[in-house]
């Protein structure tokens, strides 16, 4: 089973049942600062105006099932239905992960890597490209997700800064390791609170990798595959479940429905979910190609 990384950094929200199909979220804009003295005149200054952005997410239903005949269960040595249930669970979670990945790929703001030397556009990922993303996120007041891992007196280790998380495809591992100042997970001073899919860190970014990472096929200027690395701060995007429909396993035994000879049984899953970027300034898709 691949590592499922794309929902890891998402806010979890719920749409109450019987509330329609769309969840409306509202973010109020910051007020201006009030740096001018009120003065002695006693005149009341004008009020500021509240303003907000409405962010909507529309829940969609997804589902799939397998059909297993009576003969399959009678003839096969394997417990086929048990295997099917396990595979359906995997398919459900991979579907959820892929949906979030696809949403990020389509709607997250992007920056092309340009600091590399592979002559393509975008180039391979470099330290300066990552620094550009960090600058954008911090300037937009995105909050780092993890705290600093303080240095310890252990040979070959180094402190890890408070960090944003990056979600990448596993094909990028050689390029990520080749970025200047890369620290592999094994060289973190503490192995506490490390995610299973974590590969290492560069500056203020910790990388998660998965074979389900995002690829835009043949999308570079020279026709190479472009790898999308989503670098996220806190609360940048959300996955919204519909109450009562977050995930269902559905089994229909032999003879259910139009099956007079008890030949067919089905097992499947169904769920309702929406995915949405909440603040586009707090997540950036760093596009790069492979050079290794």
């Amino acid at each position, binding site marked *: 089973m691949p590592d499922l990384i794309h929902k890891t950094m998402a806010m979890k929200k719920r749409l109450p049942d019987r509330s329609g199909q769309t969840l409306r979220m509202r973010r109020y804009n910051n007020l201006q600062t009030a740096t001018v003295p009120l003065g002695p005149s006693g005149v009341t200054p004008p009020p500021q105006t509240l303003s907000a952005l*409405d962010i909507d997410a529309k829940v969609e239903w997804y589902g799939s099932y397998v059909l297993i005949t009576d003969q399959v269960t009678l003839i096969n040595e394997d417990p086929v239905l048990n295997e099917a249930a396990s595979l359906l669970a995997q398919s459900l979670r991979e579907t959820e992960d892929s949906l979030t990945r*696809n*949403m990020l790929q389509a709607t997250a703001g992007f920056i092309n890597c340009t600091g590399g030397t592979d002559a393509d556009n975008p180039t391979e990922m470099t330290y300066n490209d990552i620094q550009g993303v960090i600058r954008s996120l911090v300037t937009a007041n995105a909050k780092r997700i993890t705290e600093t891992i303080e240095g310890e007196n252990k040979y070959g280790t180094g402190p890890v800064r408070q960090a944003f998380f990056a979600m990448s495809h596993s094909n990028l591992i050689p390029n990520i390791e080749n970025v200047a100042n890369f620290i592999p997970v094994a060289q973190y001073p503490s192995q506490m609170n490390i995610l299973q899919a974590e590969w290492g860190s560069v500056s203020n970014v910790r990388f998660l990798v998965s074979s389900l990472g995002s690829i835009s096929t043949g999308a570079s200027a020279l026709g190479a595959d472009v790898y999308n690395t989503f670098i996220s701060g806190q609360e940048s995007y959300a996955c919204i479940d519909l109450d009562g429909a977050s995930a269902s396993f559905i089994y229909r035994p032999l003879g259910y429905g139009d099956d007079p000879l008890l030949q067919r049984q089905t097992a499947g899953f169904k769920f309702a979910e929406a*995915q949405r970027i909440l603040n586009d300034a707090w997540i950036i898709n760093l596009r790069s190609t492979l050079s290794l």
Partner: protein
Amino acid sequence: MATILTGSFVSDGTQFNLALRSGYDMFQLVNITDVGSAAANTNVMRAWGSSSMPDGSAYLNLKTSGAATLALESMITTAGFTFWDSGNPPTFAVNTVIGGTAASPVVINVTAHGYAVGDTVIFKNLTGGGSQSLSGLQFTVIAVGDADHFTIPFDGAVGLTGAITGGSVTKIIPNPFAPRNIVIGQTALATLNGVANQLTFNLNEAILNGTTNLMFGTYSVGAKLRLNIPTSFNTTTPFLPTTINSLIGTITAVTAQGGYNSFANQVTVQLSTPIAASTLLQYPVGAANFRRSYPFVSDIAEVSTILTEAEDNKGFLGITVGTGVQTTGKLYQWFARKGYSL
């Protein structure tokens, strides 16, 4: 065939998409209007296709002109039926670009391109006329001149220094989530349109839902966009003020660039922050400007009064009915069938 679904439509002669949620294997059209007609025409009477046939192909029966009989069954390989599953999008052939005009809009010459209006294409390895910087960018096909020529929404008269001389192009199925981020690719990238704090700019791709394309975005009046202009674009002369990067604007108009077609790709936004008067924002061209990040718009929020702009998965499972399997004004009944494999 275990499952049959049916419906009907009166043809307006245009290509359209029909959602068949269970993924049907066979699709058939029957002309109801002309049954028994001996009129002098060769209207489409019957057409069918299967999911295993090449995209755009169909078997076809036309009416015999002047008789109430069917002509012999024929075959077409374009403008027929295309079965779609955007969860497993097909890949398309890489075509060689022979050339492109430095005109407005740019007309691309590709032998037997096979594209239809509304398709999304991506260019690679473009050469000539400073077109290298357009490589890697997606464009909507806004017109098809003939089998060897198609048009993209780009002003080559301003944006190119000469004709495009080579490269390659591929059709793609864009990511189904909408509204997508879309590159601001037009050479005359942004113009002050004479109204305070308003900007008008052109996008590489169509942005309204269309009947001939599955994956258009849904930007519309009232939606809020963020303008993302990479720093590198501010160093190109003439340039857009650096102050415009990351500003948020509300869409006040959505139109078709230069009236090229009905595929809207021109957006006017009202910015909440005052901006200085500016000249045109030029898209940097040529090899020296090849390696850049692109300017783009991203959807950030919705019309404040109605729920119209939710970010949405527009994934599609169904069939595209092409122009070659229908006759304008005729009532057709359709049948979709799905079977079990033995």
